[in-house]
């Protein structure tokens, strides 16, 4: 039980980088980018190929980040310069990347067992203290990336990026080229997603061509769950919420799989994820409109009563 929970926490921290990427596009740029489903595999594939060819794991991880950046630039260019609808641009790049990923990897599955990865140092030791060290390292990675992203979002360029999603017309009137900021945001997002893919491949000991399928929905689930738990606030809290959301998603999922009376299989993951996202999207909207209706009713009744009292009606 504890073992599966520590595993969930580890995964939660690694997938948090992917969720931070989704946060940049979905929340900051208001641009649901589906490239994520394929760029995750791109990152995993680049890292796996380089490591299995004897390159240093850190270099392979860095290259994976670069591969994600490049994929994001393509989607961004397609959307801004090619004026292709955002969803469509993501889908087109997703399909194109599938073939590219196969080319990168050379085969649908690359095993990294018995090769040195970023995590070899930790994995070679026996359970307990070293397991804890593993979690601490992954926690540190997620938090450092989060803090770097926070810092970037408070620079002049970062403000222009945020304003691009908040009020394009305004930031353009102050001299920012919103095409460039959009491309930058989508690129950075996919870089983080690919970085996450590279970590997951090294942790799990393999890269698989289909490992990214459904990643966008998992990313959305993490963002939305985190917001529901911490509330959408300033950048610092918003990105923290994404990390917390990623952790919560993994823990809930691990618990659901352990609960034998539910008879769930690992392949049910995607259905559960979809249901979580649907609930998280639908419930707030419904409760908001119900609340508004109620408030309008109360306020009108108040006003009407006040007027009757004065003899106006």
């Amino acid at each position: 039980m504890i073992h599966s929970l520590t595993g969930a926490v580890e995964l939660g921290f690694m997938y948090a980088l992917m969720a931070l990427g989704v946060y940049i596009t979905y929340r900051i740029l208001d641009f649901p980018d589906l490239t994520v489903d394929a760029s995750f595999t791109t990152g995993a594939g680049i890292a796996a190929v380089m490591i299995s060819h004897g390159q240093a794991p850190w270099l392979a991880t860095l290259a994976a980040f670069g591969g994600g950046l490049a994929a994001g630039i393509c989607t961004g260019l397609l959307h801004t310069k090619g004026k292709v609808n955002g969803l469509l641009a993501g889908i087109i790049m997703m399909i194109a990347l599938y073939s590219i990923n196969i080319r990168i990897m050379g085969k649908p599955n690359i095993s990294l067992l018995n090769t040195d990865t970023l995590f070899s140092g930790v994995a070679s030791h026996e359970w307990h203290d070293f397991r804890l060290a593993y979690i601490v390292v992954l926690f540190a990675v997620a938090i450092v990336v989060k803090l770097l992203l926070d810092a970037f979002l408070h620079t002049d360029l970062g403000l222009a990026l945020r304003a691009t999603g908040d009020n394009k017309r305004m930031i353009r009137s102050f001299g920012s080229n919103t095409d460039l900021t959009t491309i930058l945001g989508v690129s950075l997002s996919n870089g983080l997603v690919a970085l996450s893919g590279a970590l997951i491949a090294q942790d799990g000991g393999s890269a698989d061509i289909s490992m990214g399928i459904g990643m966008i929905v998992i990313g959305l689930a993490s963002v939305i769950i985190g917001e529901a738990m911490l509330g959408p606030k300033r950048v610092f809290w918003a990105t923290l919420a994404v990390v917390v959301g990623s952790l919560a998603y993994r823990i809930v999922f691990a618990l659901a799989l352990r609960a034998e009376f539910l008879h769930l299989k690992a392949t049910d993951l995607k259905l559960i994820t979809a249901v979580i996202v649907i609930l998280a999207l639908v419930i707030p909207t419904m409760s908001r409109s119900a609340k508004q209706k109620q408030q309008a009713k109360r306020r009108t009744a108040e006003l009407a009563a006040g007027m009757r009292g004065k003899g106006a009606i």
Partner: protein
Amino acid sequence: MLEIYQVSKLFNPGTADEKIALMDINLKLNEGDFVTVIGSNGAGKSTLMNIISGVMQPDIGDVRIDGQSVASKSESERSRWVGRVFQDPMAGTAPNMTIEENLSMAYARGKPRGFGWAVTGRKRALFKEELKRLGIGLDARLRAKVGLLSGGERQALSLLMSTFTRPGILLLDEHTAALDPARAELITRLTEEIVRSMKLTTLMVTHNMEQAIRLGNRLIMMDKGRIILDIPPERKQDLTVQKLLGEFERISGHKLADDRVVLG
């Protein structure tokens, strides 16, 4: 300062909906000119603003700022010279960002945006000083999200954001039209103060005749894509709404038709 030279613009050229938006417009603004623009619906006032700011390109003609043609420059490149306040109070500010962040983006107008901190202690002190000039208490709310402000407060902030970096040209596109009378009056007063104290070269479109007469040193009237009347400073002083309406009818041959026009 600003020269508009033989500018023409057609909408939907070659289709059944073809419409002359601007026809052979020539306009020269001298440094420090404050020009108000009035005209009927579809006279081309907003199109003129959009052509100066680079949102639209003229079909023929040229726009020069400081003697230099800006025809090939995009909207974001022209923002170095041109400050703008829109009619919609929501349009000029980013609602999910704080007051100081919005001001910081305005502060970076026309400069390359890099990895420097957007809000520093020095900038914050400057923003506070500037906000105090508005006199509506925003200087105490630097870290409040702009989305929490009222329409009037947001428009006052927009006005400050587009002026405190001293743009070469200030474009005001019916920027008080969407506000209630009290707030419109506040924004009008602030506009007058800011433009006068900073000596900004300003072009203001308005549907309020009284405002058009009271503000500025020059008044132009547009109709059907043309400038039909250009009233210089010496004649503007003894102008009244009645005289202006009479003048418009005499030249254009029809009554001034604007469903939102306010006579004063």
